[in-house]
């Protein structure tokens, strides 16, 4: 059969990127099998708070798609290939209109138009928002459209299923996937003419992060081990303002600063006074002092390093603890409730103080990976038939992502991946239905054996404890400040963990809704991917965006204006690095500084 007349596409992941792809494919007549660990409405996109960027220029500031493009490339320290970033910024205003038509309750101006606020790394009001739960509202709008397509029969959902691997034929072309039912534990293969991966972030590699529980990077890692390139893995965004917790770091959105929030510490060490009783003159608004033009709205990597410096070098953390104040008490209550209620409520519920009355205590926390699966401008990975969109790929944010650009990159990525996957499927010489079943059988067998091996293993290592060790190690050495010696030690330690993994002992060996075996599989993949991060950071001897090495404090365009591309060498069981020039054809790289206007 030539080509697939009624192509079948598989989408993995039901966050913004996955759902965007699903909608485009369903609308163009394709059929989608949608796989997700959680019911798609519970995906991590719900956690995005502050807003979504688009240069609608509704505030008379002269904003434009080009300005958005320039801010994004500049904010990403020139590491992103520029053409797709430009396309994204040009598409953004249309995406906002579409979301508006879908019923997203964006905040309004008195005239009934969309309201926009300021976010980090720009001087324009460019961020549309729905209270402080914008990601939730966007996800719901897409979820509702997908439910419509589902009820019309063009989408089949597989919720509570976890992706295990791609099914590759003899020519290394992706012909479907292997997945596991998280309840019955059944391992099954599913044929498809094209597959789109939209599995989000990798926060779990760092133990505690602002990410959701499902953000383990397991799918990306499995694909990397199957031959997909992984790019720029060393670029990890640490959000300047998170709320430290026992189980996770909860995000305190940049929108708090966008609406006037000010970051400060007491000038005097170990000042025990109630923050509100500390007079203005005895507070140090260090971001405003160091970066007068952008103030509290410098990009995240800049703000994060500043807070680190104030706490660890100046020793001025609140009460000697790793914490700074994020202060909204000067903003009137009605404005706070109208624009920030969702996030203030989180602080109130989890910390117990009302941020309208007392300054919040915050500290930087792992938040986002700029790196991810390598894709071309059509969102295609190097494995034919396999596409990727959203946080799991590397394309739009360079060395540092600007706030409120993630939602737009997810939707734009999904909107690009969907139609391209469909076009690819239609152009296939042979549809998945005609592929030799042995490829499916052997992949299934391989995955079933992994499960059996884990169940039989009777060592002494608890996977959840091993994971905590990994998280502490990665947070200590692979986040804000990086030293080569520590990075090399980190990689050695991960190898030790991989060795210990062989002696794993699952406390649960049952065959129904067994979370231990699922977690152990994820942990193995986290370990493999963490080596990509640690080694990539060790190799890159410069400082760029979120990657900061005190021993190499400057950006080095001569040697390092390059994309890191990593492939897995199965024989050596380790990452293999190569470097690809960055497409800087539209904006020549220039020094990035936020103490003055660009």
């Amino acid at each position, binding site marked *: 059969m030539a080509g697939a007349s009624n192509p079948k596409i598989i989408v993995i992941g039901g966050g913004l990127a996955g759902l965007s792809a699903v909608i485009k494919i369903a609308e163009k007549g394709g059929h989608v099998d949608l796989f997700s660990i959680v019911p798609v*409405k519970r995906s991590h996109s719900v956690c995005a708070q502050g807003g979504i960027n688009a240069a609608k220029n509704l505030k008379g500031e002269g904003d434009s798609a080009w300005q958005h493009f320039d801010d994004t490339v500049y904010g990403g320290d020139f590491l992103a290939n520029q053409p797709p970033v430009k396309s994204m910024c040009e598409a953004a205003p249309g995406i906002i209109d579409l979301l508006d038509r879908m019923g997203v309750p964006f905040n309004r101006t*008195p005239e009934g138009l*969309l309201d926009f606020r300021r976010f980090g790394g720009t001087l324009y009001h460019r961020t549309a928002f729905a209270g402080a739960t914008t990601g939730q509202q966007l996800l719901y709008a897409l979820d509702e459209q997908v439910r419509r397509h589902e009820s019309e029969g063009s989408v089949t959902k597989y919720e509570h299923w976890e992706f295990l691997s791609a099914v590759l034929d003899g020519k290394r072309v992706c012909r479907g996937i292997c997945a596991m039912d998280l309840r019955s534990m059944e391992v099954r293969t599913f044929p498809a003419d094209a597959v789109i991966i939209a599995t989000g972030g990798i926060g779990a590699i760092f133990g505690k992060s602002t990410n959701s529980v499902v953000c383990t990077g397991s799918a990306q890692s499995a694909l990397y081990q199957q031959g997909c390139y992984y790019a720029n893995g060393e670029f990890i965004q640490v959000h300047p303002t998170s709320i430290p917790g026992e189980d996770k770091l909860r995000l305190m959105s940049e929108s708090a600063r966008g609406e006037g929030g000010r970051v400060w510490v007491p000038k005097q060490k170990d000042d025990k006074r109630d923050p509100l009783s500390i007079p203005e003159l005895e507070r140090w608004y260090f971001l405003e002092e160091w970066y007068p033009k952008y103030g509290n709205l410098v990009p995240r990597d800049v703000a994060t390093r500043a807070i680190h410096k104030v706490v660890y070098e100046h020793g001025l953390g609140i009460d000697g603890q790793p914490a700074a104040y994020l202060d909204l008490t000067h903003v009137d209550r009605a404005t706070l409730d109208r624009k920030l209620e969702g996030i203030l409520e989180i602080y109130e*519920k*989890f910390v117990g103080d009302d941020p309208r009355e007392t300054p919040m205590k915050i500290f930087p926390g792992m938040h986002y990976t700029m790196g991810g699966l390598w894709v071309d401008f059509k969102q295609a990975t190097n494995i034919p038939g396999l596409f990727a969109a959203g946080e799991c790929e590397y394309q739009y944010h360079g060395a540092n992502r600007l706030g409120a650009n993630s939602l737009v990159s997810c939707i734009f990525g999904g909107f690009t991946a969907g139609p391209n996957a469909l076009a690819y499927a239609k152009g296939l010489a042979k549809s998945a239905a005609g592929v030799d079943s042995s490829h499916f059988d052997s992949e299934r067998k391989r995955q079933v054996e992994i499960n059996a091996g884990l169940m039989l293993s009777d060592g002494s290592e608890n996977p959840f*404890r091993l994971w905590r060790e990994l998280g502490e190690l990665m947070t200590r050495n692979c986040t804000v400040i990086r030293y080569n010696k520590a990075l090399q030690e980190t990689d050695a330690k991960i190898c030790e963990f991989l060795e210990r993994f062989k002696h794993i002992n699952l406390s649960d060996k049952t065959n129904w*809704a067994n979370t231990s075996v699922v977690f152990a599989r994820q942990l193995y993949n986290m370990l493999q991917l963490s080596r990509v991060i640690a080694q990539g950071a060790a190799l890159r001897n410069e400082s760029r965006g979120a990657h900061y090495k005190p021993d190499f404090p400057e950006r080095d365009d001569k040697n390092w204006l390059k994309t890191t591309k990593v492939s897995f060498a199965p024989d050596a069981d380790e990452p293999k690095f190569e470097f690809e020039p960055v497409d800087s054809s539209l904006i020549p790289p220039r020094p990035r500084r936020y103490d003055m206007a660009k």
Partner: protein
Amino acid sequence: MNRELRTENSTRTVLFKIKRQASPGSQAYWEEFELPWKRHMNVISSLMDIAANPVTREGKPTTPLTYDSNCLEEVCGSCAMLINGRARMACSALVDNLEQPIRLEPLSKFPVVRDLAVDRSVLFENLKAVKAWIPLDGTYDLGAGPRMSQKQQEEAYPLSRCISCCCCMEVCPQFNEHTGFVGAATISQVRLFNTHPTGEMMKHERLTALMGDGGIQECGYAQNCVEACPKDIPLTRSISDVGREVMKQAVTDFFRR
């Protein structure tokens, strides 16, 4: 951390009593756990601690608990369960605010999958039945959406914050197999879409879906839903507004027959 806190850390413990069930058909049983107390611990972080050391209070090795969770910020709606008898989200249940032993049970109105995980797919099916979406011509560029006043946005937004946790259904005396009642969450979504300028175009179909058995008439006005909602959604107001619309619709339909 000062020394005083550290000592407190090492001696204080927290007691849990957790209802377990290996699979949908099997017998439920209880297990007790004693965990070291930590500052800011919540029910989910406690379940994570048990997974890292799955041993009961009596020292018997056991399995980690199966439960639903994801965002841990009370916005994904996953981790609803009964905590000391109350339907609520486990991530925002701070241990220091709970009476001990802390009793954890699965929601009682939904089929148990295993331990604390239940199957809540009924809500998503209900949302399908009432067409809880805006009818779009397509996702191509058709310009801006309808203008909306700040007031309209401020009314819609709270309704749109429903996290599908199903707490409102769990606590509703009318939500049971006997009535087949759709529950407050779905009715509130009908109100959300029926008041949107474009969504309104399908108002009739949504109201029709709420007529008859299992529809809005099953509501007994116990008002438990609005008390249980972790997002403070004005559910009873939604029910009375939509109830009135359904009534009007029924009368009009009757005379048009």
